[in-house]
C-alpha cells in the first residue's frame, strides 16, 4: 500500500514520466514473468547478431542472487572496428540514411517506441532481472519513460532549422545543421534502458549513425532492443549495439579515428579519462558524470512532502542515481522533526526480491559496489556522523544493503563529499539562506539540486544561486524529455534530452554564395 503511495508520488510528482492516461492503465491484470527468457546474447552490427570475433563471452549476473543469468558476447577492439565500419558505411554520402526524408527518420523512432510499448512487460522483467531494480519501477517508470523519450525525439528531425543570415556584402549566407557523423555512445548500468534511449534519440533525430556500448553488468535489455531496431526498419549500420568492457571495448571506441563524437554517461573518474583521449583527436565529447546533489529543505516547506520527496530523492533506484539528493540540508528550526520523520520512513523502506510487488528497494548492482558503499558507511561512523538507521549489508545472498541514514553530517565528512551511489542518506543542519547556498555549491560536482519551500521569492532566488544543471523546487527527479539534463562543473559537459541535446549531435555548416547584388 505504501509502495503504491510512493509509486503514485513518483508518477504525479517527482518523475512525471507517464501521462495520466498511461498511469491509469499502468496497473492492469499483469502477469509478471520472474524468469524472462534471454533471447539475444550477441553483438548487433549491421542489423545482424554476430559472435565476438574472438568468440569470447562474459557472464551476466543477477544481483538479487549473485547467480549467473547467461553469457553474452564480449566485444574486443576488432569488434569495435567492425561496428564503426558499419556505422561509417551507413553514413557515407548518398546512403539510404543520408538521403532519407527527415520525417521518415522520425517515423522510425515512433515505430521503435510502439514496439517497446508492445514488449513493455517483457523488457521491464528483463531489466529487473539484470539490474535488480523493483519490477514496478521498471514497468511503471523506466520503460514508459523510454517510450516517451523516443516519441519526443521522433518529432525533431524535420524541425531542426538552420538560419538565413543578414550578412554584409553581396552574399547569400545560410547555415545547415548537419549530423556530426559516426558517434560512439557508452552507457552505464544504473538505468540501462533509459540511457539507451537518451542516446538513440538524438543520434537518430539528427541523422548520425552510432555504435553503442552497453555496460558489462547490464547488456540484456540493450541487446533485445537491438532486435526491435531491426524490426522497426532502421537501415543496417544506423544503430549498432555491442556489449563489452570499458578498458578494451570502450577505450577502443573512444580512440577510434572514425568516430566523430563520444557521448559518455558514467563516473567522473572515467569521464576524465575519456575527455583526455578524445582531446587527442579533437573529438566532440559530451559527458554525464557523477553528482553529490544538495537537497535544501527550508522551515517554510510542506513538511510531509519534503520528507517523502527527500527520501525518494536519495533512495530511488537503490541510491544509484547520478542526481541522487545525497546531501539533505535541513533548516535548524525543523531539523529534529525532519530527522525523526526520516528515520521512521527509512525504517519502513521495504528491501527484498525486486519482483515482489511490495518491494521498494532491490539489490545494489554488484559486490564491488556493495563493498564500496559499506566502506563509505564505515567512514561516516569514523568521521563522527550519527548512524540512525541501517548501516550493514542485508542478508548474505545478492548485493543488498540496508536503507541507511546518517544525521549531524558535517560538510567535510567523506559521506558528504564523495558519491556513495547507494542507499545512504546524509542529513545536515543549516541556519541561513546565504550559508546553505554556499555550502551546497561547495563541491566539484554540480548535477542537480532541489529546494523545498513555500516562499515564492526564496524558491527563485535560491534556484538562481545554486550551481547545478537541474534545480527542482518542491519536487525531485523530474525527467520530462522536454527538459535538458546535465552538469555544471565536474558533473559533466553538455545536456541530454530536450532541444539542447541536438546541438551536440550536429555540426553547423555556414554556406556563403556570392550573388550579383544583395537587397534586404
Amino acid at each position, binding site marked *: 500500500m505504501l509502495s503504491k503511495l510512493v509509486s503514485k508520488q513518483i508518477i504525479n510528482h517527482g518523475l512525471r514520466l507517464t501521462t495520466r492516461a498511461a498511469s491509469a492503465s499502468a496497473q492492469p491484470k499483469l502477469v509478471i514473468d520472474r524468469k524472462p527468457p534471454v533471447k539475444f546474447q550477441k553483438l548487433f552490427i549491421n542489423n545482424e547478431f554476430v559472435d565476438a570475433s574472438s568468440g569470447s563471452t562474459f557472464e551476466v549476473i543477477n544481483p538479487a542472487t549473485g547467480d549467473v543469468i547467461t553469457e553474452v558476447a564480449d566485444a574486443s577492439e576488432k569488434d569495435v572496428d567492425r561496428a564503426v565500419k558499419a556505422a561509417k558505411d551507413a553514413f557515407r554520402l548518398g546512403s539510404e540514411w543520408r538521403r532519407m526524408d527527415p520525417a521518415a527518420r522520425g517515423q522510425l523512432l515512433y515505430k521503435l517506441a510502439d514496439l517497446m510499448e508492445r514488449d513493455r512487460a517483457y523488457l521491464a522483467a528483463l531489466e529487473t532481472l539484470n539490474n535488480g531494480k523493483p519490477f514496478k519501477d521498471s514497468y511503471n517508470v523506466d520503460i514508459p519513460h523510454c517510450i516517451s523519450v523516443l516519441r519526443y525525439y521522433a518529432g525533431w528531425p*524535420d524541425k531542426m532549422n538552420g538560419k538565413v543570415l543578414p550578412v554584409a556584402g553581396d552574399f547569400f549566407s545560410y547555415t545547415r545543421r548537419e549530423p556530426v557523423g559516426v558517434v560512439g555512445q557508452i552507457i552505464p548500468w544504473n538505468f540501462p534502458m533509459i540511457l539507451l534511449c537518451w542516446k538513440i534519440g538524438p543520434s537518430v533525430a539528427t541523422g548520425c549513425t552510432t555504435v553503442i556500448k552497453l555496460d558489462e553488468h547490464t547488456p540484456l535489455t540493450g541487446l533485445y532492443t537491438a532486435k526491435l531496431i531491426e524490426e522497426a526498419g532502421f537501415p543496417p549500420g544506423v544503430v549498432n549495439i555491442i556489449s563489452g568492457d570499458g578498458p578494451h571495448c570502450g577505450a577502443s571506441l573512444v580512440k577510434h579515428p572514425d568516430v566523430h563524437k563520444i557521448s559518455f554517461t558514467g563516473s567522473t573518474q572515467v569521464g576524465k579519462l575519456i575527455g583526455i583521449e578524445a582531446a587527442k583527436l579533437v573529438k566532440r565529447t559530451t559527458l554525464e558524470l557523477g553528482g553529490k546533489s544538495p537537497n535544501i529543505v527550508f522551515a517554510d516547506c510542506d513538511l510531509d512532502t519534503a520528507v517523502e520527496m527527500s527520501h525518494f530523492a536519495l533512495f530511488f533506484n537503490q541510491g544509484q542515481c547520478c542526481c541522487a539528493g545525497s546531501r539533505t540540508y535541513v533548516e535548524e528550526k525543523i531539523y529534529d522533526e525532519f530527522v525523526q520523520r526520516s528515520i521512521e520512513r527509512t525504517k519502513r523502506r521495504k528491501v527484498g526480491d525486486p519482483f515482489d510487488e511490495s518491494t521498494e528497494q532491490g539489490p545494489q548492482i554488484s559486490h564491488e559496489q556493495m563493498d564500496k558503499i559499506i566502506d563509505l558507511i564505515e567512514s561516516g561512523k569514523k568521521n563522527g556522523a550519527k548512524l540512525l538507521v541501517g548501516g550493514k549489508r542485508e542478508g548474505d545472498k545478492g548485493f543488498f544493503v540496508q536503507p541507511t541514514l546518517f544525521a549531524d553530517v558535517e560538510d567535510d565528512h567523506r559521506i558528504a563529499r564523495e558519491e556513495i551511489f547507494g542507499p545512504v542518506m546524509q542529513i545536515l543542519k543549516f541556519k541561513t539562506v546565504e550559508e546553505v547556498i554556499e555550502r551546497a555549491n561547495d563541491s566539484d560536482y554540480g548535477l542537480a539540486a532541489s529546494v523545498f519551500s513555500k516562499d515564492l521569492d526564496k524558491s527563485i532566488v535560491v534556484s538562481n544561486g545554486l550551481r547545478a544543471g537541474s534545480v527542482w523546487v518542491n519536487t525531485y527527479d523530474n525527467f520530462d524529455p522536454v527538459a535538458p539534463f546535465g552538469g555544471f562543473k565536474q558533473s559533466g559537459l553538455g545536456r541530454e534530452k530536450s532541444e539542447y541535446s541536438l546541438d551536440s549531435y550536429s555540426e553547423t555548416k555556414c554556406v556563403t554564395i556570392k550573388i550579383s547584388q544583395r537587397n534586404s
Partner: protein
Amino acid sequence: MASFTSKPPKIEIKYTQIFINNDWHKATNGKTFPVINPSTGEEICQVEEGTKNDIDKAVEAARKAFHINSPWRTLEPSARGKIMRKFADLLRRDIEYLAQLETLNNGKPVTNSKMDIMGAAACIDYYAGWADKFTGETLPTTSDMFLYTRHEPIGICGQIIPWNYPILMLATKLGPALACGNVVILKPSEETPLTALYCAALIKEAGFPPGVVNIVPGDGPNCGNAIVLHEHINKISFTGSVEVGKKVQEGAAKSNLKRVTLELGGKSPLIICEDADVNFAVYVAHEAIFHNAAQNCIAASRTFVHSKIYDEFIAKSVALAKKRIVGDPFDPATQQGPQINKSQFKRILNYIESGKKAGAKLECGGEKANDKGYFIKPTVFSNVKDDMEIAREEIFGPVMSVFKFDSYDEVIERANATNFGLVAGVLTKDLTRALKFVQELQAGSVWVNTYAAMKAQAPFGGFKQSGQGREFGKYGLEPYYEVKTVAIKLLSKM
C-alpha cells in the same frame, strides 16, 4: 481515353449533421442544404445547414473545453501530439473510403484525393511533433527580476476553409491550432462538407476531448459570417478569395479585434529562362497550371517564356494540353475532373471569351468538354498582353496564359506588377540568376526548377493581397499562440 460516366459509384454517406462536443446535431433552423456531385451536376445528399445559432452552440462547447483545468488545458503537450498522430493514422487507415468521398464531392481524380490525404496526414504528424517543442523564453534582465514568456493558446479559433482541397485544408488548419492547445470551430465549404464531417468522426475516435474540435457546415453569409463577427471567438483563419478575405478582416476588427490570418488568391508567375530545358519546362508549366483543374491559389496562371524558346514552348505546351485527359474522376486514366460548380464553370468560360475578345491567341481548348457536369477543356492562350483581363484576374480554371519576355529585369518587374504575391516559379540553371529572382520576386514562396514545392516544414503564405500570416512550418505556429510576458519581482536582497 477517359469517359464521362453519368452514374457515380455507390458511396455510403455516413455523416451529414453538425459536429459539436463530439456529438452530432441537427441544424437549429431545421434546414438542410444540397451537396452536389460536380461530375454530374446531381445531388449527392442533404447536409444540416449551420447558421448563427449553431455557431453559438459551438462556441459554448469550445469555451467549456478551453476552460482552465479542463481536460484539454491540463493535458500534457506530448499527449496532445499523441492524439494528433492518432488522427493522422486514422486518415491513412481510411484513405480508400475518404479518397472516394473526396472525389465524389470535389471532382478531383482519385489518385489526387489519395495524395491529398497522405499530405494531410503528414501535416498533422508534423504539427503533432511540435506540441511539446515550442517554447517560451527566459529573458536576461536586471537581477531583481525573473522575466520570462509563456506561449499560451489563443483560445477559440474559427477556421473557414475552401472547396478546392477539402481534407488537406482541414489538416492545414487543425495542425497548428491543436499543436498550440487551442480549441477550434471549423466551417468547411458549403460545396464540400462531406469529408470534413467524416474527419469529425475520426477526430472523436482519435480521442480529442469534446468541444476541442467542432465542425459546422454552412454557407458564408449565414454561417461563416457568424464566425467572423462572434464576440467570443479569439482568432480567425480564412482561406478563400481576396474579396471575401477583405470582408473577414473587416468583420474581425469591427467585432472584437480577433486575430486574423488570411490565405487568399494569386496570379502567380512561372518564369522560364532561355537556359531551361524546354521539355522539362513544358512539363512543369503544364502541371503548374492544370493540376486540380487549375483550382489552386498557387496556380501558375502567368507563364513567362523567354523569346528565344517561346515558339518551341508554345508548340509543345499545346500538344501536351491537347493530350490531357479530362473525364470521370473515378476513371484511373483521368487527369482532370470537373470544375467545382456551375457558377465557377460559367465564370471560367466568360474569362475565356474575354481573352479571345482582347486579342489573345486561343491555341487549344476554350470550351466545355462535356454536356453534363462542369468539365472544361485544357485551354492555352499565347501572345497574352499584361493588361488583358485574363492576365490580371484570377480565373481558377484550366486556362494557361503565355507571355513573351526578353530581359530578366523586365520580366521581374512584370511579374511583380500585381496586387497578388502568393508564389512564383523560376526555371533556370544559372546560380546567380536564380538567386537574383529569389531576391526580387515579391512572393511568399519562390520555387526554383520546380513548382508547388509544398512541404509541411515550409512556411507558406502571401505577400500583398495574397494574404497575411503563414501556414506550415514553425512559422505556422505563430498565429496560434499569444505571448504572455511574466515579470516576478524578487523582494529579497540577494
